[in-house]
């Protein structure tokens, strides 16, 4: 439409006061980029003096078009209520449409005012067009030596019975390979969430997870040996739940406090050992209590996300911290601290973007194996865990030639990435695609066991288990979802 309209230009009768220089060609020799303005004088922040238009009293709010979502959910989202007196240009009225869209339940929201019962009184009419609220969060599939095939999916219904409550879950199944002691693995999770309890800034969510798995560990050979013959596995079972109380400090900032209770049953070998390539035999710590054990934790999370577009970000930042503490009645006394920071800067009129992405975590104390940092958490070129299941025993690619025996689990890890994105196109979704970016990123990752760093027989530099990863691909934002096609993602399904 936009393009058609641009063709339908007003054939303006041009009365040239300034001669058009001839033979200067029009267009091609002008700068192709929009000129970069000097710091521009934005209009003063809107205040009472900026408001104009009639003074109104909201007499009634009428809602239409919602067949599943309850009126109350929409009314709660509105920044105004019946009885409010405000100018027609009040910012709350301007924001009203976006507050409803931010629920994520509607494709379109249209607002209009009608005359009320007396002069100055108005009826606010809200018409919505609902959309499907089932989200396919994740698809798992792939093949590795450890697990010849695995598959699974994670779904959420974000607006159950129109109540504004989300319910969802995932299930994943993985067949076992030739590792002695391994078994077919599966895991399932059920979740429920209410992001706004009774319309307040408080929210509550919870999840129940059951994991029936087996963990492989190396008993001999070199870490780079991909074969299953020098691995053993032990079976385990995890069942537990986590509940989070959230508080939206602002629309972009959320605090949450959590509690977790988990029961673990692990059939551990009596005294697991590993024969090193030089013939020495060393004990292995599998970081689990034998037989039955319990994990209870309390946690705290801070999250702030200012990216205008979280899918194809070209500006803004995302910062998050999470702390968890092994609490009373736990067989594991430990603490974890995770942090991440991503910042995006637009370049060339926001058509390109450069980003730094930092993520790090530290685990202190006697943390269970599953709470430690897995190498696939920090190296994007490895198969990520699915609902806690480890699906590959592949070692990370040794690109820098640093320490070869990088740990599979560590208590100190992180990654630092620089990413450059180039806008392929942007649209309004008329052709089902809102936009696409090509990106290239290179990152440094590291994962260590602090005990290894303390007791070492080499310099700190050569003992640090650092390496790099490279990723490149395409991100697409479409009206049926978000897709990321990357080299690292491909590698993570096949190794």
């Amino acid at each position, binding site marked *: 439409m936009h393009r058609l309209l641009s063709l339908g230009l007003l054939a303006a009768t041009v009365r040239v006061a300034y001669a058009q220089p001839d033979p200067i060609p029009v267009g091609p020799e002008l700068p192709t980029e929009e000129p970069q303005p000097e710091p521009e004088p934005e209009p003063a922040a809107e205040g009472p003096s900026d408001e104009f238009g009639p003074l109104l009293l909201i007499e009634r709010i009428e809602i239409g078009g919602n067949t599943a979502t309850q009126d109350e959910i929409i009314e709660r989202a509105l920044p105004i209520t019946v009885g409010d007196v405000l100018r027609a240009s009040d910012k709350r009225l301007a924001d009203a449409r976006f507050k409803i869209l931010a629920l994520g339940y509607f494709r379109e929201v249209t607002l209009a005012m009608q005359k009320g019962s007396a002069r100055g009184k108005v009826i606010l009419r809200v018409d919505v067009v609902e959309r499907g609220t089932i989200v396919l969060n994740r698809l798992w599939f792939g093949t590795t030596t450890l697990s010849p095939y695995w598959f699974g999916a994670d779904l959420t219904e974000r607006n159950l019975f129109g109540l504004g409550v989300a319910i969802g879950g995932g299930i994943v199944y993985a067949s076992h390979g030739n590792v002695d002691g391994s078994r077919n693995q599966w895991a399932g999770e059920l979740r429920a969430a209410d992001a706004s309890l009774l319309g307040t800034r408080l929210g509550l969510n919870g*999840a129940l997870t059951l994991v029936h798995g087996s963990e492989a560990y190396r008993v001999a050979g070199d870490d780079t040996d991909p074969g299953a013959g020098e691995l053993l596995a032990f079976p385990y079972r995890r069942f537990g739940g986590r509940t989070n109380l959230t508080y939206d400090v602002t629309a972009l900032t959320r605090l949450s406090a959590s509690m977790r209770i988990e029961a673990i049953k692990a059939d551990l070998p009596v005294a697991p050992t590993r024969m090193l390539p030089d013939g020495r035999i060393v004990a292995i710590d599998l970081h689990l209590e034998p037989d039955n054990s319990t994990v209870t934790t309390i946690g705290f999370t801070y999250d702030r996300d200012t990216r205008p577009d979280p899918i194809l970000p070209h500006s803004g930042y995302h910062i998050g911290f999470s702390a968890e503490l092994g609490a009373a009645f736990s067989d594991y006394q430990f603490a974890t601290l995770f942090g991440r920071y991503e910042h995006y800067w637009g370049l060339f009129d926001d058509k390109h973007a450069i980003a730094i992405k930092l993520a790090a975590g530290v685990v202190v104390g006697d943390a269970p194996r599953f709470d430690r940092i897995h190498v696939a958490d920090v190296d994007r070129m490895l198969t990520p865990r699915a609902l806690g299941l480890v699906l590959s025993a592949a070692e990370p690619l040794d690109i820098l030639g640093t320490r070869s025996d990088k740990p599979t689990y560590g208590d100190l890890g992180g990654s630092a990435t620089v990413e450059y994105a180039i806008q392929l196109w942007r649209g309004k979704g008329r052709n089902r695609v809102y936009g696409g970016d090509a990106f290239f990123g290179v990152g440094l990752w590291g994962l260590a066991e602090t005990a290894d760093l303390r007791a070492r027989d080499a310099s700190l530099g050569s003992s640090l288990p650092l390496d790099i990863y490279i990723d490149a691909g395409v991100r697409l934002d479409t009206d049926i979802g978000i897709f990321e096609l990357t080299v690292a993602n491909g590698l993570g399904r096949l190794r």
Partner: protein
Amino acid sequence: MRVWVIALVMLLAVPARADDEQVEQHTMRFIEKGDHLTISTGALAKLFDSKAYRALSSGFTSTVVIRIWIYPKDSSKPVAFVLVRRSVVYDVWDEAFDLQLDEPTGRKRVREKRQADALKRLTSIELLPVALLAKITVKQIYALAMHVELNPVSKETLAEVRRWLSQGTGGGLDRGGAFFGSFVSVFVNPKIPAADRVLKIRSQPFYRPGP
């Protein structure tokens, strides 16, 4: 299966290029008036489609933000910049349109009875001062760039509307991995644009003749 889905999406993406915003070329009038260079153009007439035109009488504010730069040929460093902000709201009881016009000459509030007149107030550019003449060197060739937005949305609001995408619905036992990871989702995914409509306009090259 996922590969097929991605291939399909990429196939659909190809025609989406045509959906991108293009810079349009418009011929404008440049007139000296007092100490200022002024412009007149009808380039904004197509800013409003029928839906946007109907929304003028909704009782909610419609806003047009116009940014104008003048820059020398072969340069992207502007010598002048002007910001114009025009808003209108319909008074359902008086059945009139109240306008607030923030222009280089100052703020004006006017009232129009007819919707077409309100639209004209929002979109007409007649003798709009865009630069001090002292900034325009005689016989130097310049061009004018204009960026027009209908109902622009702040970055904060855009972030708020799509925030649910990155918030998720809480995690289970496997939080460490999720904390480092990224996400890919499939769902019905409406997205609001940064403005209801955007026009990017460039004038013909012009110069200021000597005395």
